[in-house]
């Protein structure tokens, strides 16, 4: 700088000062606001009729639309905006969506779909849109199957929509096996039945010539275990749903009941009474090897595996009253997890592994409840004359159970309730129904 004259330096300084200043990034002021309150109501959605892309698809397109709407409404989380309120419709699956029209009727979600039938092939595709953000939620999905499987395809569309909106896995494409009852209360005729989760596609698996109890699905949903009195004693049977073939377990002697599959599908856990003592056992289906898990003189029953197959929850009166206990799947010491007043029974481990559902009897009232696997955070979801036998939905969010009314004409019906205790609703069956068991998601 010494070589630069003083005048030159001064001129450079003036030039530097006259340079236009770089425009500063305009910064908006920032304010923080707490949003409190909010509304608790079903999320409004619109599902204009799925577009039949050919004439053969027209009847099934409307049915698919109806099943999707019913599935979402049945969760209690969504509310369908009636088609009469639509401002505009959807005539082409690929046409741009007029979000303003759907926003005007307060639709937060929009389901657009199309159906085509080509011979024995049914194709269903859909897109889900966030109306407020005016963007699609995820990619469009297409399902194909036989025309007879249109309900399952509709349920799968519902599962996808439900999953995107709630972040949870769906449960619509699933089945329920239960005991269908008929006749007077003192002389009930009972038979096994299977249906879609919503009561559709009902089929009877057995006749009503013998008493059957406690049907349970295999992990792959291809078989069921159940207890039958056809020999005069309660015995465990295994039925293949495809062939309807049944088999029993010769190694099991004595009274055995309340069977459930292990998560690996190769073992079953059940209760058996031997020499006047009822304990928990496991049985290897392939080898027939039987393992005793409990040895207490108390009545140990209703075992249920954890999703990882490492633990078993069961009911026992070893403490004086019937309570819930957890032990290793290999047996050994059992830890009590229920400490409330009353008695606990029929424990069922959630598919998520975080909760145990149970039946509780307290002060002459029956309740369906859930608790953490350590026994904490117990909460009762229902209360009635007789609520019993909970079973979990595939996503661990909904419970089914049966409720029997009091009196001489009392009869059982199947009900469903969310784990928050909301959305209690009856599952329609043609006859009386009890002892439901919910399958996993069908593949």
């Amino acid at each position, binding site marked *: 700088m010494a070589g630069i004259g003083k005048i030159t330096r001064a001129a450079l300084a003036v030039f530097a*000062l006259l340079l236009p200043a770089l425009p500063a990034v305009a910064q908006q002021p*920032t304010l923080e606001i*707490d949003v*409190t309150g*909010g509304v608790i109501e079903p*999320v409004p959605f619109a599902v204009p009729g799925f577009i039949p892309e050919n004439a053969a698809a027209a009847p099934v397109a409307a049915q698919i639309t109806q099943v999707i709407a019913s599935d979402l409404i049945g969760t209690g989380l969504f509310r369908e905006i009636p088609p009469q309120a639509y401002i505009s419709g959807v005539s082409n699956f690929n046409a741009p969506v007029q979000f303003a029209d759907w926003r005007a009727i307060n639709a937060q979600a929009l389901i657009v779909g199309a159906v085509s039938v080509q011979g024995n092939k049914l194709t269903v595709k859909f897109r889900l849109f966030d109306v407020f*953000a005016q963007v699609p939620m995820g990619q469009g999905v297409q399902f194909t199957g036989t025309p007879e499987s249109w309900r399952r395809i509709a349920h799968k569309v519902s599962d996808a929509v439900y999953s995107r909106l709630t972040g949870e896995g769906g449960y619509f494409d699933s089945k329920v096996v239960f005991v269908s009852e008929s006749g007077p209360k003192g002389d009930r005729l009972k038979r096994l039945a299977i249906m879609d989760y919503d009561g559709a596609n009902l089929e009877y698996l057995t006749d009503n010539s013998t008493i059957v109890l406690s049907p349970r699905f295999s992990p792959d949903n291809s078989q069921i275990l159940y207890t039958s009195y056809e020999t005069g004693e309660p015995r465990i049977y295994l039925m293949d749903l495809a062939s309807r073939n049944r088999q029993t377990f010769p190694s099991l002697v004595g009274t055995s009941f309340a069977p459930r599959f292990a998560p690996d599908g190769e073992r079953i856990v059940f209760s058996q009474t031997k020499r006047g003592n009822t304990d928990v056992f496991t049985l290897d289906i392939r080898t027939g090897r039987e393992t005793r898990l409990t040895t207490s003189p108390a009545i140990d029953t209703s075992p249920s595996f954890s999703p990882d197959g490492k633990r078993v929850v069961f009911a026992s009166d070893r403490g004086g009253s019937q309570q819930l206990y957890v032990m290793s799947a290999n047996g050994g010491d059992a830890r009590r997890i229920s400490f409330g007043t009353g008695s606990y029974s029929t424990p069922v481990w959630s598919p998520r592994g975080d909760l145990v559902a149970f039946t509780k009897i307290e002060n002459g009232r029956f309740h369906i409840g859930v608790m953490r696997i350590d026994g904490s955070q117990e909460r009762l979801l229902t209360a009635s004359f007789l609520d019993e036998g909970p079973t979990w939905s595939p996503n661990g969010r909904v419970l089914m159970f049966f409720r029997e009314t009091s009196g001489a004409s009392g009869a059982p019906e199947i009900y469903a309730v*969310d784990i928050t205790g909301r959305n209690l609703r009856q599952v329609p069956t043609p006859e009386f129904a009890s002892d439901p068991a919910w399958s996993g998601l069908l593949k």
Partner: protein
Amino acid sequence: MRTGIIISGAAHLLFLLFLLIGPFAFRPEAVEIVPVTEVSLMSNAEFEAQISSVPDVPVTEVAPMAMPTAETNDAAAPEADIPPEQTVQDVTETPSERDSDPDLSALERLAQPEVSVFAPQPISPVVGTGTTGNSPTASLNAPPTPRAAPRIDSIAAPPPPDVARSSDRVVDATTPGDTAPAPVEEQVAEAPPESVTQIEPDAQPDAPPSAAPPRASVPVRRPTNAAANAEEIARKIREEEEAAIQAALEAATAVPVETPAPPQAAPNLTGAQKRGIGAVIANKWNKTIVLGKENYERLVVRIAVSVGPDGTVLGDVEPVDPANPTGDFAVAYEAARRAVLGAGKIPLPAGQFPDGVRLILRFDPLQGIGLN
């Protein structure tokens, strides 16, 4: 004996009288307070140096005063009424050229010290010996330490140029009798008829004093070495000039970096205004799905959205906390996002945000629960 008693009684009586009326009759003389002026001694060299350099006194122009007039009264003139002595100046000085003002542009102007009103703090009633072991009584009675008066760092004024002021007058040597003017008859000055009895100077009166008394200026410290100080001052001026130029050049040659302006201080919104904004958004905040989650109480999310001056939501919202919501937090974020996008226009106060505003919205599903 009797005489002694009388004398003793009289003496006692006098003593008692003295005690009673003495304080009133005999007052002590007031102690004369002697003013003290501090004087500092200087050496002969310092004195010589001081008188050799003529201080640069700024010229103050003062309007010429009117000719004073004598008061006329009926009172008889005093006997010793000596007429005023008139002196005639025999030398007329022509005013020299005023010195050019020094170039002080490079000098940093000294900021005027701020005068703060010091309010003595009340002495703390806390009783304690403290680390010094002072008794509580002593601490309560100790007077507050005076506040140090602000000092003005004054530097001596630069000396005049080397070319000293010189008078253009040339005085020739005179001898008595050669150029002596002829004696002039003494004349008695008379006031002009239009003059008034009261003297009214044309000078502007001083400004009325303010409430606070004028601060006495700290006297300029006398330089001990004027020449050396002058060189030091000039050197400082040159250094400051060069530093200023250097800084400007560096700023000009530096790589421009786009730095965002700091965020403006947000204008305050009233609580009612904030609640109004929150209510509009909450009206569209459907937390049904969120409340169905396990441990929904932990699903608190914060999102950011830019809003235009008219309350229009600009663009999409963005997650703040968590920054990348997944799982159940993603569901909570989507519910909050739909609430903001579905709320329509945000009710901002008119004209308060000409550049719009960025809202950070906090959604806590646990708040307001139960309002089905």
